[in-house]
């Protein structure tokens, strides 16, 4: 099997991530699927001044914000759902070091759709009439804000509605359950806005929990909602969303979710977390899994949604074979 677009995580960040970049992560859900490990690597490679576009906050944004790597962020939801407030993001916002532009969850999906379709604006029937329209974190002096969600007149009825600005992030790291080396991807669980993001972003890197043979895609083409034509690179990383969960693959690591968020509440805690969970492991996938702990990995894999993966297991390329493909790639690159 050719490795095609399959490259190591560290290389993906080196190649595609830039300081000051508009960086989007998908699915970007606080508890579920998200390319959290990509954020760890951004910090390992000291990326900074990021403009984060996260449909929702996640532990990734929480971490990036706590570490001071984000100066601007756009979000639909900035908490951690059942795990409470996102302490790292909160601290950055309250201190004024991170300007957060608020929208609703639908607004973020629509703005990505608008970017995907290359529209100049997107009709807005939500967010209008509230402070999501009138207050802008990016333009704090404009109050009421008029440029964030300006008005547009419907030519059929003559009535005014709002207009959202489309999003076209420079880079998106999209977490998927399964990817093939060509860049075709299957997501299990809600897509959230990964479909729209995969078309809106200027560059897409897939971060996949498992690599499958392309025959899997040919058997289930309707599940391949992200086709290779929109993908630059594929990163293999089991437990890429950890400590968040990935339907069919692994459950939320409740203990680490709480510990991580607690750590990010203070500068000291954040420093310790960075030392122990960001800068502590090697560049290899196995080192990352050791960090999580092999017992934890085994335990979280037994979750109630594991059956969702069953139809696809036979096409999953074994861990060692994927690593061999990556080695091959390294040799060619050298």
């Amino acid at each position, binding site marked *: 099997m050719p490795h095609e677009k399959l490259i190591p995580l560290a290389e993906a960040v080196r190649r595609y991530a830039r300081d000051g970049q508009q960086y989007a992560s998908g699915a970007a859900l606080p508890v579920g699927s998200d390319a959290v490990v990509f954020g760890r690597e951004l910090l390992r490679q000291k990326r900074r001044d990021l403009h984060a576009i996260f449909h929702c906050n996640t532990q990734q944004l929480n971490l990036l914000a706590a570490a001071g790597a984000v100066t601007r962020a756009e979000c639909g939801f900035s908490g951690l759902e059942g795990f409470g407030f996102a302490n790292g993001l909160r601290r950055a916002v309250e201190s004024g070091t991170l300007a957060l532009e608020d929208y609703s969850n639908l607004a973020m999906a629509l703005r990505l759709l608008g970017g995907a379709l290359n529209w100049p604006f997107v009709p807005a029937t939500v*967010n209008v009439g509230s402070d999501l329209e009138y*207050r802008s974190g990016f333009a704090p002096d404009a109050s009421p804000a008029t440029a964030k969600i300006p008005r547009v007149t419907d030519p059929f009825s003559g009535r005014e509605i709002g207009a959202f600005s489309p999003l076209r992030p420079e880079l998106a790291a999209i977490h998927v359950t399964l990817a093939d080396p060509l860049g075709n991807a299957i997501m299990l669980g809600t897509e959230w806005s990964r479909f729209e993001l995969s078309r809106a972003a200027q560059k897409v890197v897939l971060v996949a929990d498992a690599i499958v043979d392309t025959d899997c895609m040919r058997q289930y083409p309707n599940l391949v909602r992200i086709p290779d034509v929109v993908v630059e690179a594929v990163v293999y990383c089991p437990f890429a969303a950890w400590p968040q969960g990935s339907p069919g693959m692994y459950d939320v690591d409740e203990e680490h979710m709480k510990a991580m968020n607690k750590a990010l509440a203070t500068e000291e805690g954040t420093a310790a977390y960075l030392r122990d969970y960001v800068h502590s492991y090697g560049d290899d996938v196995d080192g990352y899994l050791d960090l999580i702990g092999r017992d934890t990995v085994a335990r979280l894999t037994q979750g109630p949604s594991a059956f969702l993966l069953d139809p696809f297991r036979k096409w999953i390329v074994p861990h060692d074979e994927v690593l061999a493909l990556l080695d091959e790639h390294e040799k060619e690159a050298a």
Partner: protein
Amino acid sequence: MSLDYTRQEMMAIATGREIRDGELAIFGVGLSMLAGYFAQAHHAPKVRAMTEGGIYGASPIGGLPWGIECNRISANATSFTSALDALGCLVASGRCDVGIVGAAQVDRFGNVNTTGIWDEGGEIGPRYRPPKTRLTGAGGANDIACGARRYIVMVTHEPKRFAERVSYVTSPGHLDGGDARARHGFVGGGPSAIVTTLGILRPHPETKEFRLDAWFPFSSVDEIRAHTGWDLAVSPDAHVVPEPSAAELAALRRVDVTGALRKQA
């Protein structure tokens, strides 16, 4: 006072009673989800529940989901789609019958703040300063507030949470009251009830100002007025809310298997 149910359980049950069988309903996490699935387990078996991410046909297993996309709510779904679908095609479109949202702060017209708390006076001012306390933002609540036919606000009944005017309108209630929502063309009808830890407030049919409609058995008109940050009017029909029945409590506790609502007073 010793009760065989907690205040949170009463709140969840009172909220669940607002949900009617067969309705298309959207719930958030936590209390809101428990209230919704309690309704399904008790009196609304055909409620059509969905999440913001487009999870359809599911009910939680193994305890209260940590999020709307947690495996606990993903393990028995019949359909997974997307946020655009659930919040756009089904909620903002006006198709969804009822939503339940939480609030950090709510005002006399049912406007909801989940974005931030500012210091001292609570006013943001002409410049959009960072809040003293940053909250969770809008999530899908703004979309539900704009689009759902009606929605229910769940909030802990404390004076600081019941403000004359919220400092930031995250999710529009009845705005300035009356037909203020019509100015923005919202297809949704706005908040139909605020269910608190002490009782239930409902909007005056004309002015849309929220009035005390009912108090929980362990509360009273006086206690509720004392815990409300504006001069709360009392509906002429105000009454006590019936206690949870044994069947209701049993249904709620089947949903709340880990007892999240029993851990609090």
